[in-house]
């Protein structure tokens, strides 16, 4: 192995791949077979965390950062003056296997700049995955990028070797896409998604009849949107996320606060702050939609096109809908408990089980880990003390903010800092 050369390539191609936020390694069902290497069943594992607090689970690299496209938001666009490099297929295989054997990673996340044409690039990505599976007997996790515009035949092959496939839609609105990535068409993104979805359905049906049907992308597909690059609202972002969840059966949609990488009049300037708080609120909303039984138009609609920055979306919804509260912790159903601010799904599960034994009071809730500073205004329990005053939404919000410390508080505080 030519160590110095590999080292240089790895630095360039890992650096270029880091803006892809997906690092999930969970949800696959690939068991170790024939005493081979690796196993990816069930839970994902984060082997390390970078200093920005993001999980490192997969070896996330580009096959190459040469690219024929010129998308404004992308660091590897052809007009950008950066060092270019390309891995050979065998080099990626060796790195993956050696990192995996040392327990550094769960597997490989392989993306690429588009060189020559989409199909040529997609073929190279598939070749890496095929080699890992067939020659190295590798059962770890493989996440392949679907290259926008790749043919259906290649998307079919990719799913045979990869655990997850993803195409990043990047710009949530079609008008934004025209502005920032004029060479790409919206259909280029959705065509591979549709193919993967159809194959997933077909394989699922076939498995019902023939149990030994081979796997096709067992961890499903995902996509990513950049937020804060165009002037899209939170409503635009979440409505298109909902669309992708429903239409293409996405396992995950990721939201990535735009990190300025280019001088361009169409984009926020270099040095402007990454919208991390907004990103956080979008993920909270995403969770409410997927796990808490909320519908997207309850949280975002024409009257509320953007999420509150100072309180989380569930609290914000509750404050707008005080007529549903207070909820009796000892009687309410799961659906309603999940809507109480300060109760997570784990707490809801514990409450449902524990209340079969006795009526619960504040002390019980506190010990189970419920965030009472928020929940207390929305609950009654087996106790004589509860919030009797008829408080309006503004008062409740004020009291909650006063008695809590949010990690993002300093970003939206109205008060001027004395020392800065």
């Amino acid at each position, binding site marked *: *192995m030519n160590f110095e050369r590999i080292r240089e390539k790895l630095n360039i191609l890992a650096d270029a791949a880091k803006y892809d936020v997906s690092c999930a390694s969970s949800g696959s069902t690939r068991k170790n077979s024939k005493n081979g290497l690796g196993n990816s069943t069930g839970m994902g594992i984060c082997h390390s965390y970078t200093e920005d607090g993001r999980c490192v689970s997969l070896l996330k690299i580009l096959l190459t950062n040469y690219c024929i496209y010129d998308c404004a938001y992308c660091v590897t666009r052809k007009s950008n003056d950066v060092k270019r490099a390309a891995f050979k297929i065998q080099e990626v295989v060796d790195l993956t296997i050696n990192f995996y054997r040392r327990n*550094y990673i769960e597997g490989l996340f392989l993306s690429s700049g588009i060189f020559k044409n989409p199909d040529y690039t997609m073929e190279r990505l598939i070749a890496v995955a095929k080699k890992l599976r067939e020659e190295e007997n590798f059962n770890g996790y493989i996440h392949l990028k679907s290259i926008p515009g790749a043919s259906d035949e290649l998307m079919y092959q990719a799913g045979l070797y990869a655990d997850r496939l993803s195409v990043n839609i990047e710009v949530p609105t079609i008008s934004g896409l025209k502005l920032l990535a004029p060479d790409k068409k919206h259909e280029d993104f959705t065509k591979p998604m549709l193919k993967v979805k159809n194959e997933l359905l077909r394989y699922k049906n076939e498995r019902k009849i023939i149990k030994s049907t081979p796997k096709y992308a067992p961890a499903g597909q995902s996509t990513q949107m950049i937020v804060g690059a165009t002037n899209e609202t939170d409503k635009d972002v979440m409505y298109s996320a909902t669309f992708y969840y429903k239409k293409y059966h996405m396992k995950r949609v990721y939201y990535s606060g735009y990190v300025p990488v280019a001088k361009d009049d169409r984009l926020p300037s270099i040095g402007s702050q990454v919208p991390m708080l907004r990103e956080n609120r979008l993920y909270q909303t995403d969770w409410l939609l997927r796990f808490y039984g909320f519908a997207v138009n309850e949280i975002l609609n024409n009257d509320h096109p953007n999420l509150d920055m100072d309180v989380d979306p569930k609290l914000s919804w509750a404050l707008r809908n005080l007529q549903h509260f207070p909820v009796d912790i000892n009687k309410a159903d799961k659906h309603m408990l999940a809507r109480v601010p300060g109760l997570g799904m784990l707490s809801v599960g514990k409450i449902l089980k524990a209340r079969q034994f006795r009526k619960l009071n504040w002390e019980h809730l506190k010990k189970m880990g419920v965030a009472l500073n928020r929940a207390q205004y929305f609950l009654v329990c087996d106790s004589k003390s509860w919030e009797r005053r008829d408080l309006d939404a503004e008062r409740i919000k004020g009291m909650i903010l006063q008695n809590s410390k949010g990690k993002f508080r300093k970003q939206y505080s109205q008060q001027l800092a004395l020392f800065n």
Partner: protein
Amino acid sequence: MEKSTTLIYDGSFNGFLTAVFTAFEERLNVADIQTNNKGQSGLFSENETIFTNVEKAKRVWNGVRNKSHAAISNIYFAYLSEMEGIEILLFRYIQKLMGTKSNKHLDFSDDTMLRISQLARSVGREKHRMEAFVRFQLTKDDIYFANIEPDFNVLPLISKHFRNRYADQQWLIYDVKRKYGLFYNLKGVELVSLNLNEIHFNKIHKSDAFLNEEYDYQTLWNDYFKSTNIKSRINKKLHTQHVPKRYWKYLSEKKETA
């Protein structure tokens, strides 16, 4: 006052289960259950020494398991926390569990039940962390070797994970704190104890037990770790929350800071 007894056992999990069996069989009023190297006798209780009996231990295990799979795994996980006084707490847990028909282990409004389920969760978290933070280094004898120093005794819990994953390579994971390890010899996993004359952290302490190629890969991994960081999103607090400092010395990517 009813006579109470302190049970003394050998410190093994089967020994503990035998003690539980004895307590139930002889209807003892148990004051405490202790390991024999502690030897703290209570003022008003008698001591009774327990001799580990696998058959009796098995009966307790099966008895609880028939009641609930979740409960027996909670008990085993919480036991491995090695917390001071865990034995008597677990005994109360088993007493309550066997004393009712219902799924008592789900009663999160009962202090004992909640405490054990929380402890089991902590140990589960540590188990998951060890599956993540083990860093193998390839020795010249072709063994992938790792030192660990977990808060709880999680080696028995991670054995299956590593056996399934690394079925085609020899590996050894050694708990420096508890002085025993797991060795996989391509056929099965065995318990080993070693006389380690040095602890192999990572590449700042280079050792000739390892190939040069090993240090090359550690360098590549460190480089990768650095280049995948986005500087404009720095969040050190979150970083240390996910990777607590006590684990850093065994992680090659954190070698400069540890």
